[in-house]
Structure formats: C-alpha cells, structure tokens
C-alpha cells in the first residue's frame, strides 16, 4: 500500500516522544496486587475465627511475640535497599555483602518460625487440626513463610550467580523487582504480626 510508507515515516517521527511504562514493572505490580488479594482472604478468615475455637490451646496460652525474628525480617528490607544502591553505584563488593546479609536475616526469620512451630506442635500440642486457632494460624503464617522461602530462593540464586562472577549489574531491573517482592513479603508480615500476635492475643 502506497500510503503505507508515508504512514511508516509518520509513525517513526511519532515514536520519538512515545513512552510507555515498562512491562516488567507492570507485571510485578500486578503480581503483588493479586498476592495481596490472596493474603487478604486468609487474614480476614483469621480475624473472623478469633475466639471461635471450640477447644484449647488458645493463642494467649501458647503464643509469645517473635520480637527478634520480626526485627530481623523488617531490617532485611533496609539491607536489600542498601544492596540495591551499591549495585547502582556498581560497587559489587558492598552489594554482595548487603545481599548476603539480607539472605541471612531472612533465613533467621524462617528458622525462628520453624522453632516456634516446633514448640507449638511438640510442647503445646497445637496442630493444624487441633482447633480453629490451629487451622487459621498455621495456614496464615505458613502462607507467609512460603513466600519468604520463595523470596530467599531467588535472592540466593542472585547471590550465587554474582559470586560466580556473573555481571549482575546488567540485571539491575530484575534485582529491583526482586527487592520489591521482598518489601512486599515484609509488609505482609507487618499485617500478619499485628493480626496474629497483637489482635489475636
């Protein structure tokens, strides 16, 4: 088609001032939105079932506030930001350091959760089938923990690659997305923490 070429030229000129949001950004944002919707349901159910358990043990008898773990997880949000900045400034050494620290903090959180569950199961005999508290507690905290695990896996992959000398600075955007996801996981913990350990007791 003859006008096609004219059109094409026209399009070219137009393309210069044609800016659209980056697709990866949109993707990760909506991933987080849909995850939020999922967590909202589990949180809502937890709230609805507070105090509805037919039998013990009840939250106030068995739950103690995981202060240290919470501090670790939340501060890992900071360390990951530092890592990011380091990477932006292309200081790989500091990047690796902060990144590893983030993983460490996250890992400790998981470990703490594990210990908490161990105590609940073996000492307090609270399992997911014991009562409504058990069902809602393990599912909500477990859902969050599973997200921590996913986060840690990706974080570790990045670290491993970097240590192997992979030019991570070329993947700045991916690193950024990963850190967003990690912030999300932290934010969710703030909610879970408030609901389970403050309101729930």
């Amino acid at each position, binding site marked *: 088609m003859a006008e096609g070429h004219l059109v094409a030229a026209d399009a070219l000129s137009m393309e210069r001032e044609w800016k659209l949001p980056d697709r990866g950004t949109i993707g990760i944002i909506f991933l987080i939105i849909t995850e939020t919707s999922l967590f909202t349901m589990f949180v809502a159910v937890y709230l609805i079932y507070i105090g*509805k358990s037919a039998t013990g043990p009840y939250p106030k008898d068995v739950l103690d506030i995981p202060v240290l773990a919470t501090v670790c997880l939340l501060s890992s949000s900071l360390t990951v930001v530092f890592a990011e900045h380091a990477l932006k400034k292309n200081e790989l050494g500091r990047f690796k350091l902060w990144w590893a620290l983030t993983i460490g903090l996250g890992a400790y959180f998981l470990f703490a959760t594990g210990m908490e569950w161990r105590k609940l199961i073996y000492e307090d005999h609270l399992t997911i089938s014991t*009562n409504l508290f058990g069902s809602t507690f393990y599912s909500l905290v477990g859902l969050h923990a599973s997200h921590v695990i996913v986060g840690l896996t990706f974080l570790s992959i990045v670290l491993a690659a970097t240590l192997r000398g992979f030019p991570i600075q070329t993947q700045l955007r991916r690193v950024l997305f990963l850190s967003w996801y990690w912030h999300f996981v932290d934010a969710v913990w703030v909610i879970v923490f408030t609901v389970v350990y403050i309101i729930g007791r």
Partner: protein
Amino acid sequence: MATIDYPLEHPKANEPEFSFSQSLYTWVATVDHKRLGLMYITAALLFLIVAGLMAAVMRMQLAFPNGHVVGPDTYNRLFTMHGTTMVFLVGMPIVAGLSNYLVPLMIGARDMAFPRLNAFGFWIFLFGGLLLYYSYFGGGGLSGDGSAPDVGWFAYAPLTERSFSRGHATDYWALGVLVSGLGSIASAINVIATTLSMRCPGMTLSRMPMFVWVMLVDAWMIVIALPPLSAAQIMLLLDRYLGANFFNTQAGGSAVLWQHLFWIFGHPEVYILIFPAFAILSEVIPVFSRKPLFGRPAMVGAVVAIGFISMGVWAHHMFAVGMSSWSNTFFAASSMLVGVPTGIKIFNWTATMYGGKLRFATPLLFCCGFLLQFLMAGLTGIMLAVAPFDWQLHDSYFVVAHFHFTLVGGLVFGFFAGVYYWFPKAIGAMLNDKLGKWHFWLFCIGFNMTFIPLHWAGMLGMPRRIYTYAPGRGWEAWNLIASIGVIFQAAGILCFIWNVLRSARHGEPAGDDPWDAWTLEWATTSPPPEYNFEKLPVVRSSRPLWDLKHPQDPDWKFE
C-alpha cells in the same frame, strides 16, 4: 517501535512445508500469542460440546417425571461437571483466548508482554481441566470405583468435607479448578502488561479499541477476584488432607464462610464471563452499522463502573442464609445498581445501530440476539436482586433460567458473533453465511424454547439440582418443552461445527479486511504473520483504518 525496518518479505514465503510431527511440535512449543489464542478457543469449543452433551443428558432425564435415564449419583455428577466445565473450562478460556489473539493485534504489538508466561498459562489451564476430568477415573481413589465430583459447581461446605464427600472426587474439583485458575491469573497479568506497555505509537488509552478496554478491565477483575476462590480451595484441601477445621461445623467452623469466600469470587466471575461478549459487541455492532461506537467515554466508564460495583454484590447469592436485614438490604441495593452501567451499555449499542446501515451478516444477527436476550436476563437478575422476591426464587429453576439467559443468551451468543467476525482473520477463509444463519436461528429458537419455560417451572416451586420429580406438581409441560428445545440447540451447534470444519478448508478466501472494518487487526494479512505487522498505519484516533480509508474526513478531526 521497530515495525518499519522489519524484513518485508511476504509472511508465507518463509514458511517451509512441515511434516505432521513437526507442525505438531511447532504448536506445542509455540509462544506465539495467536496460536495460543486459537488453542484456548479450540479448547473452549471442545469443552462446550462436552458439557453441552452433559446438559442434553440432564434434559433427557428431566423431560418427564420419574425419569430413568440416569440415577441420582450420575445426575448430580452431570450438573456439577456441566457447571464447572462451562464456567472454568469454557468461559475462562474464551476470555484468555480472545484477549490473547486480539489484544496485541488491536494495539499494534508484536506479541504479548510475556510470551513464555503466556504459554505456561495455557498449558497449566489445560492441565487443570484434564485433572478435573481425570476424576472420572481416579475420583473414587485407588480402592473405590472412580467418579466425578457431585457437590455442585459452587461446592458448598460442609457437603465437601471428608465426612460427607468420601473418595477423591471433591479433591479433583478443588485441585483442577485451583490449577486452571493459576493459568487465568497468569494470562490476566499478561493482558494488563501488554495493554499498558505495548501499545503502538499514537495509541493513547483514549484511542484504544473498546474491545481492549473491556478485556483490560476483565483482566483486572480476574487478578482481584480469583485469589479468593484459590484461598477457599486451599482451605478446603487443608480440611480434607490435614484435618484443618475451616469448614468443619463440628469444630465451630462456619458453613457460611465458604459461601462468602466463594461468591466474593463468584459474582465478579460472572461479569468476567460476560465481558468478552461486551467486548465483541462493541467491535461488531459499529462495523456492521457503519457507525462509530456511540458514547465511547460512557462505555468505558460503564465497564469500569461494573468492574468496581460487581465486587460489592456477592451476598445476593446468600439472601436465604439468614443474614441481618441490613446486609440483605445493602446487597439488594448494590446488585440493582449494577443494572445502571449495564443499561448504559445496552443503550449505547442500540444507539450505535440507530441511524446506521445495518448489514445483517451472521455476526450482527448474534449481536441482536444478545441484545434482546441479555436484556431479559438482566431484568430477571433485577428480580432476583429484590431480596424478598429472591427468598421465593432462590435455588429454583428461575435462577437456572436467569443465568442461562446471561451465559448462553449472553456469553455464548456474543462469542459466536465474535467467531463469525474474526474467523476470516484467523484462518484466512470466510465462514459460510448461509450455514451461519441456520446456526443462528436454530440455536436462538432452541435456546429460548429451553430456558423461557424454566422461569415458570421455578415460579411453580421447582427447585434446582433435583434428578427427578413426581408428576402432578405443574412442572411436566415446562420441562418437556425445555428438553425439546435442546434438540434445536444441538442442531444449531452441529451446523456451526460443520461450518467451521468445512470453511477452514474450502471457505472462500477472506482477504485482509473482509468486513471493511476499522481496527488494526484488519491492517495485516489474514492470517497474520508471526510478527503481526509489516508496517503500522499511524494511530491518531480509535478507528485508524477509518482514517486511512477516509483521508478527507478522518476521526481524529472530531475526537
């Protein structure tokens, strides 16, 4: 974008002849949004036939009182699988398929934002579907004889708990739907990312085709509304496998909780299902009336409004569970309010036809069928939304009639309109219009014959989900007529199947733009090449091809 300096050789030129196994491989391994789109649509059509045949059996059973075609267990499985299939394996792939195939073409993009995620979405969906159907073999567990779930498509607790539903049937239901849901979410995120960040130069949101707008809102609703279902199903599986107590009423669990979780998903879902039809009408009606869509901004506003209001109406499915009079009033009100934006759409479509030159090819026929039937469907919906009236109508055949008017008279009619409209683009050959008209009239007559009488059966106290009924309750006539109607529907569908199979091979060539249409997908060859476009017409309005064809009075002068 890099459309211009792309190698300009003709698409067909670089396609060598494939052996069967090779071409099969190219389909299985493809990440091309068009092929994935076609695969979604094909899957939807196959499942439509399967679930339709199930419905035919149900109608046979109900044609006469004390029917003996199938027993209670079989019947209960039939309606469960029919409903689940139609909603999750017909409706959802239609959403994903249409947006996959058309959105990139309409916004002048080379592919979806995440092609691989797209392929993942399709295969995980298909896997979920097959998992559901595998229940026919594995449902009873290794020991028992296999069987499909029989808990109804919304699987109310506690009927789904281990103590009332033994074997694995219900697990297959939960897992299958859960898994295929992942696929839907994946493709929804993909659609959003594509529309927001892949539009070709000049295509601002205000110029985006109405179709894309509707599918964008649709995807948004999927992203928000599907997780609640997943959550509920996860809890159900925890109950069934780890002995959790979410829906265990003996341990203080709530049976109503499931209903809330399900319908928080379930009501938005029904709009998710109807939106493709809305999207199709918004493209087909203008082209066949030769006029631009009337009140475009209002139409966009309306879908967005529906997208939001529909999140707040779910409990209108639960008027009978004994909610407080306040909640009943609230949900009655919000449900009726949805009627307003929906009305705006109906009115604008009509206004688009008003003053046009209507070309009654098959696509427009199906659109007109949609308009009248969906009007009826919506108004019965309003009746159901009037809570006190619903206390009588709830779980009766009136509800069955209502939602078949929306889903068959609405979704399926709109879908057929879309198939007749875009088949030429996708396959490169026209569908036979004569057969198309037969398809339309048979299906239209059959459909109304089946579902209008069921309104009466419901108002005479016929509950749904009953495998049999005694004579003398005033239901015989209505049920018989309804069952006869299915014969016409089946005949119509057969015309369609025959039409597709035949036209695909010897249909008359379509050419790039058989309908003299206005959106970008008609600017490329039929079928489009891998890379969709050789060069893009400039987009200065919502009807780029109109501007091309009428340089003297282009749209952008008026927008």
